[in-house]
């Protein structure tokens, strides 16, 4: 049976100057899950500044790497030490300088792009004004009574700006739009121009640089614009050279920065949980598997030669809900683990349902979708998608294999029921047997969940609940008794007397427990006891009947295939073949998906919800960036 590994709570006291090395050693150790330090005497948080510096440096480095591309694979030497706070801050300052230089290039590029678009607009303005035969020199004269500005602003603000400028007797004339930017001419009395300066700034107005040549001679203006374009191209080239040279100039140092930040990561991560300290001392707290304690001592001795103090204790009953769960799954089971964890993480000490989940899920899927042909298609499809979906493909491969196995038992190949003889039974020809088996499976499954719940409650120290509650052993007693009674009435067994006694005893114990647990007045207590006891019985039986869907889907599979064959039989040869292929694709895609969801639903709601709280914490060890999963 899979269970979370027993863990110990450790508190590691060391010199504050060695905290980063301790965190690095624990990350290399691979099975240390940091937790908040509870030593009240240590009131300082010495790793906060370290984490801040690391976060800032990490942000800058990732922006720089975005600019200059990856610097190659990172290998962390086994003897490399973590940077001290001062080193980290120095590295952060260097990264800042480089990034600021990069940012200036960006800014310059953006300004050049904007200047180019302004130049385009100016050229267009010039062309329009030439066609209108307007005397530009006269229009743009600085000593005239009319002030004329040519520029751009965000398109969204144009209407508002026009209205606002109208209040000061100014006119706005839009002549072009590029993207979100509108180009316009603003004209108004020169003596009121100061009045609108703030308004134009607020509106994001950008003046087009109009050269003197434009004021005097349009032809000269064209020459000026050509020169301006060349200047911008040169500027842009210069800016790009800085950006292009980034990797050449700083590549090795950026790679070194990556390495140092990777080495600093463990303490920065541990700081999030809470590293405490006082004066020259610091403490790291967390959880370590009990069986790794010897290895932990060896690791610490090797690095710190006795310059540490390690306090080890077992988790107390009060903190069990805070203890992370570390379960080592066998490789073949790992693909199923995400499906269990999508419901929740098992609590520390709880029964881990991954193993029964994998078996039962495949069993349910195969039973509901038993077909050699369809199963083979699912298997091949999952195998083909292996590279894209990774190890989750194994769930598809196993489900396909289960479907093929049940196809063999049912004698079904691509919906044909008469190509091979069923090894066991044909759902279409023996539906009552299939229904009975499905319900019998449900009884077994629910009994198992009640046992698992009793175990979990017992482990958590809630013995009374494990023994007397409706989802504990008393509930199981009632359930098995009631099933025996029903089986006796149906003539399938002859245990009516014993079964009645068990059922009666079970429900009485459940009712007595509910009565004991109800904290209310007499009337309410009676009501709660009666209703909750009744609900226990109803729930158990409705959940059992829920398993009839397993039989229903196995029949549904045959019925869908029959429908496809009926449709195909009325068509000519080409239509027949096309309908069969399309029909089978629909069955695989649609029914396959529905059955996969139904099997999951049965597991989650009829199974997990009965014994699995799913509110545990995952064991998340400190790791080095390049470290591969050990667990």
């Amino acid at each position: 049976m899979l269970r979370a590994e027993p863990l110990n709570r450790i508190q590691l006291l060391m010199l504050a100057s060695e905290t980063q090395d301790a965190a690095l050693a624990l990350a290399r150790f691979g099975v240390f899950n940091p937790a908040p330090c509870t030593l009240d005497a240590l009131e300082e948080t010495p790793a906060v500044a370290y984490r801040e510096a690391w976060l800032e440096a990490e942000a800058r480095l990732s922006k720089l790497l975005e600019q200059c591309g990856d610097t190659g694979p990172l290998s962390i030497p086994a003897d490399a030490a973590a940077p001290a706070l001062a080193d980290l801050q120095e590295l952060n300052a260097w990264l800042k300088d480089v990034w600021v230089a990069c940012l200036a290039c960006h800014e310059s590029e953006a300004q050049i792009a904007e200047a180019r678009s302004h130049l385009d607009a100016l050229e267009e303005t010039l062309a329009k004004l030439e066609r209108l035969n307007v005397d530009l020199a006269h229009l743009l004269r600085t000593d005239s009574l009319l002030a004329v500005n040519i520029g751009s602003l965000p398109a969204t603000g144009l209407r508002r700006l026009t209205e606002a400028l109208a209040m000061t007797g100014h006119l706005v004339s839009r002549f072009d739009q590029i993207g979100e930017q509108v180009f316009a001419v603003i004209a108004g009395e020169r003596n009121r121009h100061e009045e609108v300066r703030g308004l134009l700034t607020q509106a994001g107005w950008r003046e087009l640089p109009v050269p003197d040549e434009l004021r005097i001679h349009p032809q000269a203006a064209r020459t000026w614009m050509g020169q301006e374009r060349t200047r911008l191209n040169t500027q842009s080239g210069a800016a790009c050279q800085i950006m292009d040279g980034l990797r050449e100039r700083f590549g090795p140092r950026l790679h070194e920065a990556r390495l140092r930040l990777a080495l600093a990561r463990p303490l920065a991560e541990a700081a999030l949980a809470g590293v405490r300290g006082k004066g020259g001392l610091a403490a790291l707290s967390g959880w370590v598997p009990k069986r790794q304690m010897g290895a932990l001592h060896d690791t610490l001795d090797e690095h710190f030669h006795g310059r540490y103090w390690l306090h080890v204790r077992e988790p107390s009953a009060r903190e069990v809900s805070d203890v992370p769960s570390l379960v080592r799954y066998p490789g073949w089971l790992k693909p199923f683990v995400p499906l269990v964890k999508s419901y929740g993480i098992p609590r520390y000490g709880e029964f881990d349902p991954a193993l029964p989940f994998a078996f039962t899920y495949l069993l349910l899927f195969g039973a509901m979708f038993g077909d050699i042909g369809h199963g083979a298609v699912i298997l091949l499809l999952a195998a083909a998608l292996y590279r894209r979906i990774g190890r989750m493909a194994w769930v598809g491969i196993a489900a396909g294999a289960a479907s093929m196995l049940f196809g063999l038992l049912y004698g079904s190949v691509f919906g044909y029921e008469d190509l091979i003889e069923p090894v066991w039974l044909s759902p279409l020809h023996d539906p009552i047997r299939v229904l009975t088996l499905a319900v019998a499976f449900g009884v077994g499954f629910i009994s198992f969940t009640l046992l698992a719940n009793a175990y979990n409650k017992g482990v958590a120290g809630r013995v009374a609940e494990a023994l007397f509650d409706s989802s504990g052993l008393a509930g199981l007693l009632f359930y098995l008794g009631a099933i025996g009674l029903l089986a006796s009435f149906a003539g399938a067994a002859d245990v009516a007397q014993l079964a009645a006694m068990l059922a009666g005893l079970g429900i009485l114990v459940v009712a007595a427990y509910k009565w004991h647990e109800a904290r209310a007045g007499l009337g309410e207590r009676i009501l709660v006891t009666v209703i909750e006891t009744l609900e226990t019985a109803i729930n158990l039986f409705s959940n059992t009947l829920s398993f009839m869907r397993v039989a229903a889907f196995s029949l549904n599979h045959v019925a869908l295939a029959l429908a496809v064959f009926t449709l195909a039989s009325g068509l000519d040869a080409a239509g027949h073949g096309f309908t069969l292929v399309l029909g089978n694709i629909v069955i695989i895609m649609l029914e396959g998906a529905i059955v996969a969801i139904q099997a999951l639903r049965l597991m989650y709601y009829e199974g997990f919800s009965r014994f699995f709280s799913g509110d545990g914490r995952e064991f998340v060890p400190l790791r080095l960036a390049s470290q591969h999963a050990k667990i």
Partner: protein
Amino acid sequence: MSAYLDTRVSLFAGRLWRDEALDALVGAPDETVADTLTQRGLSQLAAGFINPADRQDSRSLEQRIIAQILDETQVLIRPLCGDARSFLTFWTARFEISNVKTLLRSKLTGERPAAVLARLTPMGIFGRLDNQDLAHAEDVGELLRRLEAGPYASIVRPARRAFEQSRDPFILDAALDHGYYEGLTLYAHPLENAVGAPFRSLMANLIDRINLVWLLRYRFNYGLPPAQVYYLLVGSRYSLPGTRLQELAALDSLDAVLAALPLPLQTQLAGVTDIPSVFARMEHAAAGQALRVLRSRAPDIARAFAYLILRERDLRAIRAVLRGRHLGLAEADIRMALHRAPARAA
């Protein structure tokens, strides 16, 4: 869906504070305040009232109040879709715009990223910005460009252009506020047509108040010229349309502006002599209208919006009370700061 939201709003409406309850909170003994807050569904605020050294949650009072509003908005928008959902979602975006302003200020003052991150309001499911990434921007320029590549591009772009010209933080803040409320009126427009008068009345009260208070502040506190003041106001279709705002912005005193208001607003603001009183009087009138909408058989989105307006007002009042108590202010001073009417109709 409508029945669900109506019922939900009606249930929430029971949480609103009457003036008497607020008054009682001002004078309540310290040991009963946390219980009172918890009983009214404000457990987050109650946790904040307990001795700060004892509590594990380090959020500020302001952050707790906003978290409460966001939690309730999340419940209210659950059954909504289309324009109504978009509107209420954008209504919460003003808290995120406030985060944007905090981030920008932090870059102007060179504040550490970790320090500013602690001051930002957690937006929960309404958050659309990567605060970690933004807080680590090198300077205002980088921050503005990163924001411009995000969901608030249309609000940030004009603000960036304006700021680049002037490097004036006031211009930046004003442009962001202006952009947000312009956006809100766009989101409200289809609902005003679909839902009608009750919703329109709530928007009218909100936008008219914002426009008038901004106009007075920009004109007489900051001394901006009329054209710039007008530019900074929100495009309005309500009691104070564009032409009226232009006329008001051109006037040269608070009294002249108040005298030139439409008659209903003049009546509402009779006797007012300063800008905070204008705000308080208009807010009180807006709350009265919101209460009427909440109690009416108005469409569900109008009632939900009315509830949120009232709830936020209540929570701000509670914040004032808790702050006042924390600072040891006299009860009379706290009551004066509340600017609430003597009592609301039950």
